[in-house]
């Protein structure tokens, strides 16, 4: 046994031990895909290494075992007690095989045959040479003594005009042996230039057949002068059965390009080197997994830079989309489509990276409740639920101070002194709850206390005293409660250094609005107050729908759109109460032209977007729906802060600006009227 073999044996023993513990884990959790995947990978490494270092028995045996887990991985075979038992027995056998004795003992031999039979029963008696790609390989005629060919058949587009069906020719060829066929649509023109009577498909065929090159040419006899046909002799061996070829197929399976004939032959000739290379790479990967690092800390500035770059990328992508759209170059279309996909994935990934669970703030909150409560002589319990809910890092940053402020309010104004609480028949210990959850495209953070609630009279008196409210009309309870969100409001009897710093909940509300969020207050006397903060999932980039109103472009967040209707204007019916019945549902609607005070637009067909917000729906009428757009949302300047329906702006592909509509606000207003 040379040094390399020794080394491999050591590594293999590690692998086998790892395999054993993985199998035991799998026993406890039979449907865990990642364990199955890891088992498969380990077997694969064993197999590869065995072949490379002359442990052929190990390699061959593990190959069969690997096939079983390939089936398991594909969901074609369930993990059962018997399967696990057999695998564990197999591992014991591999340990024996790893000794690499020239001859197995009689005992081991019978063990070997016994286990192999069991394994084969799992694979369904099928010889395990069937690879992933076997479904592409058509076995029409058994050929033993033949030749492998590569054939490219590229008919001219008009070939079907004279009654030729190129598929028959491919079929004729394929039936003469064993073949792998790959169809291509590389020359597909854009839809408006596509002639449905034309053939844009070309075929690549790798075949093992008895036919001579002349006979293959004969198959294409009628079409050879109007097609590009290439036939290449790949030798007398059946390359379809070679592992090298299937490896090559695997490596190009995602590619839409033609086989690179040169690489193909080159690879086939040097395939052994290549297998060694991939094996080494596998090994490195495994080594990495041994001292896996599951997470790393990244400077948040780097993250911000990443997000900025992704935002730029999205904007540039929009410009490219526009250019592609205008130029209709099929190749460019294809490239742009893949690039757009990548951009989208990258964007989502970058977002995911900058998500933080709300619980990262829990300690700060808990500390505040504990310290401040003690200072004020109040006993308060702090409960959190759903704080694993994740939010964009920048939103977490912007929302920390507002939450701290609300908590201070709860502790200072909400929760009563223990004596007062006992008098009211409440437990002496107060309770503040913070819960978070996702609802559609928003996250809600609810902070509630079981304190005194908001004192209606005090609020009303204060509002009148501060000239915030004239006191002439009768207000509902909810309206009174919401008065405390008005600027310059503070009802605390004395200005403590905690919540009352001359700023009240109005500042909290403004901060939340700045990040496109919203604030709701509910309060019941002596039962407590509950404040809900509604936040968008992300701040910077949204999937939007581009619409047109009076030649100006706007973005509506795609996730709020329920349906888009094109209606005859007569369908609007009674335009007085502005309710339309769509699919048996009454929906209030509004015309953006009216909201923005543009001239009315007289068209027969009306474009109507139905948008949803929680369980409410509303419809808005726009001039035109232009299409999807990934929008990088930039905040509006200070001067535009008073805007109700606009939450930001974005730059379109052509460099113009589109405003981002806050449909939630529109719905709220519509349903309030």
């Amino acid at each position, binding site marked *: 046994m040379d040094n390399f073999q020794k080394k491999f044996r050591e590594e293999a023993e590690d692998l086998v031990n790892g395999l054993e513990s993985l199998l035991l884990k799998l026993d406890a959790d039979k449907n865990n895909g990642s364990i199955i995947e890891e088992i498969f990978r380990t077997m694969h490494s064993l197999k590869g290494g065995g072949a490379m270092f002359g442990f052929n028995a190990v390699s061959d045996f593990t190959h069969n075992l690997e096939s079983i887990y390939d089936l398991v991985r594909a969901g074609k075979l369930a993990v059962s007690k018997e399967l696990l038992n057999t695998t564990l027995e197999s591992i014991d056998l591999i340990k024996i095989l790893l000794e690499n004795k020239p001859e197995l003992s009689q005992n081991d031999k019978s063990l070997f045959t016994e286990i192999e039979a069991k394994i084969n029963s799992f694979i369904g008696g099928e010889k395990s040479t069937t690879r992933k790609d076997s479904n592409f390989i058509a076995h029409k005629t058994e050929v033993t003594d033949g030749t492998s060919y590569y054939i490219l058949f590229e008919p001219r587009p008009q070939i079907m005009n004279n*009654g030729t069906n190129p598929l028959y020719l491919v079929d004729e060829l394929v039936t003469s042996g064993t073949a792998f066929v790959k169809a291509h649509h590389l020359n597909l023109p854009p839809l408006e230039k596509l002639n449905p009577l034309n053939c844009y498909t070309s075929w690549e065929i790798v075949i093992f057949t008895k036919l001579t090159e002349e006979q293959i040419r004969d198959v294409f*006899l009628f079409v050879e002068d109007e097609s590009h046909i290439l036939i290449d002799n790949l030798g007398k061996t059946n390359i379809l059965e070679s592992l090298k070829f299937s490896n090559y197929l695997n490596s190009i399976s995602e590619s839409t390009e033609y086989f690179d004939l040169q690489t193909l032959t080159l690879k086939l000739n040097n395939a052994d080197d290549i297998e060694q290379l991939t094996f080494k790479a596998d090994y490195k990967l495994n080594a990495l997994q041994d001292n896996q690092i599951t997470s790393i800390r990244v400077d948040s500035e780097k993250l911000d830079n990443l997000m900025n770059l992704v935002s730029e990328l999205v904007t540039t992508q929009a410009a490219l989309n526009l250019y592609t759209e205008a130029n209709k170059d099929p190749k460019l279309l294809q490239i742009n489509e893949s690039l757009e996909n990548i951009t989208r994935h990258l964007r989502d990934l970058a977002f995911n990276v900058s998500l933080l669970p709300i619980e990262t703030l829990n300690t700060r909150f808990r500390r505040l409740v504990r310290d401040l409560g003690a200072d004020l002589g109040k006993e308060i319990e702090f409960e959190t639920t759903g704080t694993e809910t994740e939010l964009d890092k920048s939103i977490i940053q912007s929302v920390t101070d507002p939450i701290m402020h609300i908590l201070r309010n709860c502790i200072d104004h909400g929760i009563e002194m223990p004596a007062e609480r006992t008098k009211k028949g409440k437990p002496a210990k107060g309770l503040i709850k913070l819960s978070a959850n996702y609802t559609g495209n928003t996250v809600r953070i609810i902070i509630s206390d079981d304190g005194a609630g908001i004192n209606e009279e005090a609020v009303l008196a204060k509002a009148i005293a501060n000239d915030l409210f004239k006191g002439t009309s009768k207000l509902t309870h909810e309206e009174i409660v919401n008065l405390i969100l008005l600027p310059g409001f503070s009802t605390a009897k004395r200005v403590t250094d905690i919540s009352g710093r001359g700023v009240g909940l109005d500042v909290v509300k403004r901060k939340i609005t700045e990040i496109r969020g919203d604030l709701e207050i509910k309060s019941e006397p002596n039962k407590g107050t509950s404040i809900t903060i509604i936040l968008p999932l992300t701040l910077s980039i949204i999937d939007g729908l581009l619409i047109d109103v009076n030649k100006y472009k706007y973005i509506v967040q795609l996730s709020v759109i329920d349906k888009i209707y094109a209606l005859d204007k007569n369908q609007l019916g009674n335009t007085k109460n502005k309710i339309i019945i769509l699919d048996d549902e009454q929906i209030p609607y509004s015309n953006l032209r009216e909201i923005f005070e543009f001239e009315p637009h007289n068209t027969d067909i009306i474009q109507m977007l139905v948008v949803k917000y929680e369980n409410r729906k509303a419809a808005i009428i726009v001039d035109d729906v232009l299409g999807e757009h990934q929008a990088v949302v930039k905040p509006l300047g200070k001067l535009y802060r008073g805007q109700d329906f606009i939450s930001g702006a974005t730059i379109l592909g052509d460099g113009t600006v589109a405003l981002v509509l806050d449909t939630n606000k529109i719905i709220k207003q519509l349903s309030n009227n």
Partner: protein
Amino acid sequence: MQKNVLIVDDSESIREVVGFTLENAGFNVFAGVDGKDAQKFLDGRRIDLVITDLHMPEMNGIELIKVIRRMATYSNVPILFLTTESQVEKKMEAKDAGATGWIIKPFVPAKLLEAINKVIR
């Protein structure tokens, strides 16, 4: 479903040999003596394949192919023509007119079916 084949040839023996071979192979056969005569079968009925000679008295094969290609119903029907090894330029002419393929005379039944197999199934 049984396929309908239209044979067009002025030689009765050819019509018979081709017809016999095709009927034995399970096809339904119509036969015309020349281009003009053959058109009586192109009346809207389903024709799956046309086999035509090139040299015929009233309307030759090339003209017949052109006529068929101009008929909406039959514009995509496979058309094979009968030719001899020597007529290379005729072959090109027929292909340009819209023929799908050819059968070299003289032929044995197996060759005929092989050619047909390339264009219909």
